């Protein structure tokens, strides 16, 4: 269905409950502005080819909007890559849109850095992992603090493939992410880590769907957020295990650390299980900083700000601890540390 034919989704759908479509749309909902390109670039030998973006919106209004808005569209084919690949996505102007497709047939480590100062940016990332392919994917959002950001991702995993997916979300003023992974083949697995550091009046809404369509599949999601100022973080998850997808193993953990009185956080980790021989669990927790931990660090000579920063760093670091790819883990942790140090110096 085309964007203009779609009704505005009601807030009873939890995907749109806290960040309704009109709040993330760049202008008015019946308008599809002409979008500038998000410029993708890569320093390595791998080639980014221009392609036609996918026209499958899955009935989702955000995807349909990104398709209607146009923008750039690139594809990268990956086989066995010895070195990590860094793709830079640069956005500018009023409204910018980009589509990126990764076709993975071997083992690769890819980092996507998005930066720039557009008023609004939309990104649709899709990926196909062929049988036995392994992708470690790091997404680093360092957009300007006044940018509205819409991000959709769709990953299809074939037999025995694995995806390690890490997100560091520190940029943008209002962010909405809808990240979906389908485990379509036996033995496929996804490990997903999301780290959010929100401050000021930042609003960050992350929706993660993982669908176990086949048995003997595995998923592991960790979402940690540290919210200060007036910020608002929303983490929603939908984990489904289809009928007959026995021996699936799925877990979701959502943790929120609230750093100021006015910070808010919501967690909705949902489960739909239609098979009986599975292991599925989720957990969510929300709490302030432990005063004992602060006291301990301050008794070692740290100022209150430094002590808090150490605790936040440790807490956010922990979100990446389920990753097994060392290059991905180190890069994400390094980026996080640099960001927190810059915050502290401000």
């Amino acid at each position, binding site marked *: 269905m085309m964007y203009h034919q779609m009704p505005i989704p*009601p807030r*009873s759908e*939890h995907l749109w409950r806290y960040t309704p479509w009109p709040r993330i749309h760049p202008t008015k909902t019946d308008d599809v502005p002409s979008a500038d390109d998000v410029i993708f670039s890569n320093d390595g030998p791998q080639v980014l080819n221009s392609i036609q973006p996918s026209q499958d919106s899955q009935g989702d209004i955000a995807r349909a909007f990104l398709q209607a808005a146009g923008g750039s569209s690139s594809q990268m084919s990956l086989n066995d890559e010895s070195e990590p690949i860094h793709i830079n996505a640069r956005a500018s102007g009023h409204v910018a849109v980009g589509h990126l497709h990764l076709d993975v047939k071997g083992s690769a480590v890819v980092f996507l850095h998005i930066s720039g100062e557009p008023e609004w940016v939309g990104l649709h990332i899709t990926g196909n992992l062929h049988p036995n392919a392994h992708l470690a994917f790091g997404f680093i959002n360092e957009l300007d603090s006044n940018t509205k950001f819409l991000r959709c991702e769709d990953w299809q995993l074939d037999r025995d493939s694995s995806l390690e997916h890490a997100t560091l979300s520190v940029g943008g003023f209002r962010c909405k992410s809808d990240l979906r992974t389908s485990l379509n083949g036996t033995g496929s697995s996804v490990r997903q880590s999301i780290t959010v550091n929100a401050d000021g009046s930042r609003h960050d809404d992350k929706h993660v769907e993982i669908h176990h369509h086949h048995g003997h599949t595995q998923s592991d999601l960790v979402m940690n957020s540290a*919210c200060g100022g007036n910020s608002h973080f929303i983490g929603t998850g939908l984990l489904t295990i289809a*009928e*007959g997808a*026995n021996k699936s193993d799925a877990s979701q953990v959502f943790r*929120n650390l*609230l*750093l*100021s*009185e*006015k*910070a*808010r*956080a*919501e*967690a*909705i*980790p*949902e*489960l*739909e*299980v*239609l*098979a*009986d*021989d*599975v*292991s*599925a*669990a*989720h*957990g*969510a*927790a*929300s*709490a*302030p900083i432990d005063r004992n931990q602060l006291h301990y660090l301050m008794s070692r000579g740290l100022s209150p700000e430094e002590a808090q920063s150490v605790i936040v760093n440790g807490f956010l670091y922990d979100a990446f601890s389920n990753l097994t790819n060392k290059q991905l883990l180190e890069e994400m942790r390094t980026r996080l540390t640099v960001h927190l140090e810059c915050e502290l110096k401000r």
Partner: protein
Amino acid sequence: MTDDTQDIIGDYKYGFHDPENSTIRFDKGLSEQVVRDISELKNEPEWMTDIRVKAYRHFEERVMPEWGNCALLDSIDFESITYFLRSSNKTEKSWDDVPDDIKNTFDRLGIPEAEQKWLGGVTAQYESEAVYHSIREDLEEQGVIFLDMDSGLKEYPEIVKKYFGTVIPHSDNKFSALNTAVWSGGSFLYIPKGVHVEMPVQAYFRINAKNMGQFERTLIIADEGSSVHYVEGCTAPSYSTDSLHSAVVELIAMDGAKIRYSTVQNWSSNVYNLVTKRAVAHRNATVEWVDGNIGSKLTMKYPSVLLKGEGAHAEVISVAYAGKGQHQDTGAKVHHLASNTTSNILSKSISKDGGRSSYRGLLQVTPKSTGCRSKVVCDALILDSDSRSDTYPTMEIGNSTSDLEHEASVSKVSNDQLFYLMSRGFNEEAAMGLIVNGFFEPFTRELPMEYAVELNKLLELEMEGSIG
């Protein structure tokens, strides 16, 4: 009972039905006139008629919920339901005065026996209105009021007017509007300041007629420093056509009061059980919902607590069993509206023979409610590959001083546990039964003894033939 009926009923213990012997029966279907007629028949004050009419209009305007099991919800035909049916002309105080056929029903349900033994008070509702009601003399002397809701409105209109619809307004949802428009029966319980009702107070609700809607309205007010335990059971015979049970239950726990509300719902598998239950807990008050859902075709029930006063506490323990053709969509909602409030939610569910159980919960801490603590635990067992279990929890945290946890797991019965028990001489079915009973144990231990025994028996019946 004919063989055909037995086929429909299966093992459902309460699937018998008495010949319908009503003194007043309204035509099927709902209109403003039906609502006014119900009110007139009951000789209600004008303000209640006005509330009913307002609620009816809201019901007509309000769309069906767009979440949950929409297919089943949309299949409810409101025009084929009888909204009022009177089985007995008056509420009897003495068991001997209750008409024989109704008495037989309640004898089979164990009501008078229970009362003779140890219960504080009993009310029994058959179709739309209470037919039997009794309260122990010592409680009456202490000022405890325990009446069916219609009598409560007649005898204590000022209390009813003050609290009716304050916790659940008619505009809360489509089914609370329906209930407010056509309510009949239910319990009215008032505990004066400082009175502790030691024995549980009990109510039993039964639908006997076909295509019947039961819309009881319960209002419980525990005044400052008082405490009470209210127990409710529900059954219905099995017919091939569906019935609707849509109750509204409002609890008000004043400062320092404690209310425990226990339910074991065992409606037959053709009943839509769409119930709104909510409590308000003032300063240092405690509200506990102990909620068992075994029967019905579709249950949508989320006992809620509004923690309005500092230091208030909410406790929700619920179990759900979803067998063939059943969807138990249950859960709990706790709103921390004041500082230093605490809550615990424990939910357990079992899905079997293609049944579906869903936990749907909400935990909310408002920005000004500091120092709140809450813990939510949901465990689900799926006993076969046709069944389904969902968890839809929501946590909304509005400030940084609150500590909240949620955890959930879905699994099948552990082979290790089965093996262990079978190595001790149990056959597989008995071992499975023991594990299921153990799984529900945190719930059953909170029930009065006779209900716990009843629940275990029901589970045993439901579990028969679960192996192989």
